[in-house]
């Protein structure tokens, strides 16, 4: 289906080659069902681990085979493309599927059985299922991210529902008003630094983002001269969805499911924060004479045009355009020629990030090249500053 617009008497036409591919994103919340099907078919306990296998083996393989998609909508058609409601319904549909998958898993965590599953799951199987459901939860944060940026009020409420599974409702506050304002500066807990390992970054971003979200809401209420201990505080109303969801599941399937709810939430949060780690690794905005950092531009985010991960993550990898135009809908995000590009899609890069030495070997030189070898231009992690000065400092003169 082509979209068209008339600009200065000229008809501009464009066909979205990914229009129907976006439906593939709905595979993700069906992962729990896939584990059931696989188990009923094979009888193997490995089936419960299908979620991590899908995201960390199958998707990176698809990225390597399916390659790149640099297709951009023309400027003139961005508005009509954004106005096409088909695209937003795909993101809305994710949420009920996500909740249904969690409820289904909670039934199994609580010792339930189903056709094809004769007895209650063993502990190791429940852990595998929690990992698989956690993958859905993490990508649910990505869906919440897409919706939470929109100006339409009901979409912002949908974002809170999608975040309920991980108890990460504060993400929507901190990401929009904290991360986007301070991205690629040392002050942002969610921008990783050159030389910082994933495992150092995780506690810094999780605790820093929570504290920042709290401070942002407190400041908003201070301006109103009201107490921030209020249901109108977006942190509390977002978390209340989690209390409702987890509470209902525990009433239905027993409090014994709580460790598995916690585990799947931890996996989801880990996945989201690992993606955060990839997105701005080593990037720093110059500080202007006024003391403010320069405006965010395409050079401050890592991008990828790998079509596999892009279709699953709603163009999240066109990250530079997202930071330039945060309210722009996913289908209209554009590839930027000025943006640094990752060697493969986010899914494959997550796997590399697990092992810091491999990550450094792949990424550090790319960061330095991006800054023409100038270490002072990067967002350098203080812990490694002296070592990196010795090792890479000479590149400037060369």
């Amino acid at each position, binding site marked *: 289906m082509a979209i068209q617009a008339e600009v200065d008497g000229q008809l501009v036409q464009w066909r979205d080659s990914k229009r129907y591919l976006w439906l593939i994103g709905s595979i993700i919340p069906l992962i729990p069902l896939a584990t059931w099907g696989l188990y009923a078919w094979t009888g193997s306990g490995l089936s419960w681990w299908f979620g991590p296998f899908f995201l960390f083996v199958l998707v990176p393989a698809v990225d390597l085979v399916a390659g790149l998609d640099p297709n951009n909508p023309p400027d003139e058609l961005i508005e009509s493309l954004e106005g096409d409601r088909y695209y937003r319904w795909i993101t809305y549909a994710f949420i009920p599927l996500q909740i249904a998958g969690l409820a289904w898993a909670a039934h199994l965590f609580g010792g339930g059985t189903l056709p094809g599953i004769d007895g209650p799951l063993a502990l190791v199987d429940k852990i595998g299922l929690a990992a698989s459901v956690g993958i859905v939860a993490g990508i649910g944060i990505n869906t919440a991210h897409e919706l939470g*940026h929109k*100006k339409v009020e009901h979409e912002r409420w949908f974002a809170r529902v999608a975040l309920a599974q991980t108890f990460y409702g504060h993400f929507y506050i901190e990401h*929009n*008003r904290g991360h*986007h*304002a301070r991205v690629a500066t040392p002050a942002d807990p969610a921008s990783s630094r050159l030389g910082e390992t994933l495992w150092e970054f995780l506690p810094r971003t999780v605790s820093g983002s929570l504290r920042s979200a709290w401070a942002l809401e407190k400041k*908003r*209420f*201070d*301006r*109103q001269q009201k107490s921030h201990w209020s249901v109108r505080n977006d942190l509390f109303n977002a978390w209340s969805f989690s209390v409702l969801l987890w509470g209902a599941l525990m009433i239905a399937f027993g409090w014994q499911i709580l460790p598995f709810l916690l585990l799947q939430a931890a996996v989801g949060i880990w996945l989201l924060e690992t993606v955060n780690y990839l997105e701005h690794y080593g990037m720093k905005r110059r500080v202007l004479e006024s003391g403010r950092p320069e405006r*965010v531009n395409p050079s401050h985010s890592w991008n990828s045009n790998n079509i596999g991960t892009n279709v699953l993550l709603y163009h999240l990898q066109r990250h530079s355009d997202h*930071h*330039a*135009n*945060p*309210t722009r809908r996913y289908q209209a995000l554009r590839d930027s020629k000025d943006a640094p590009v990752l060697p493969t899609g986010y899914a494959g890069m997550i796997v590399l990030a697990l092992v810091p030495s491999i990550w450094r070997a792949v990424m550090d030189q790319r960061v330095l090249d991006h800054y023409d070898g100038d270490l002072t231009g990067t967002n350098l992690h203080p812990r490694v500053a002296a070592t990196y000065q010795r090792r890479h400092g000479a590149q400037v003169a060369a």
Partner: protein
Amino acid sequence: MSRFICPNCEYVYDEAAGNPREGWSAGTAFADIDADWTCPDCGVREQVDFTMIES
């Protein structure tokens, strides 16, 4: 009473209406808003970046 627009996402701050949710009651002059207040819609631009569209 003037109106000011975010140059990134076209959010408009109308002095007459203010933005009570953000803590700016109706009638708050744009000049009285914190310089580091970020646009409530996109979060990318701050008070100092806004441009006046109507006075």
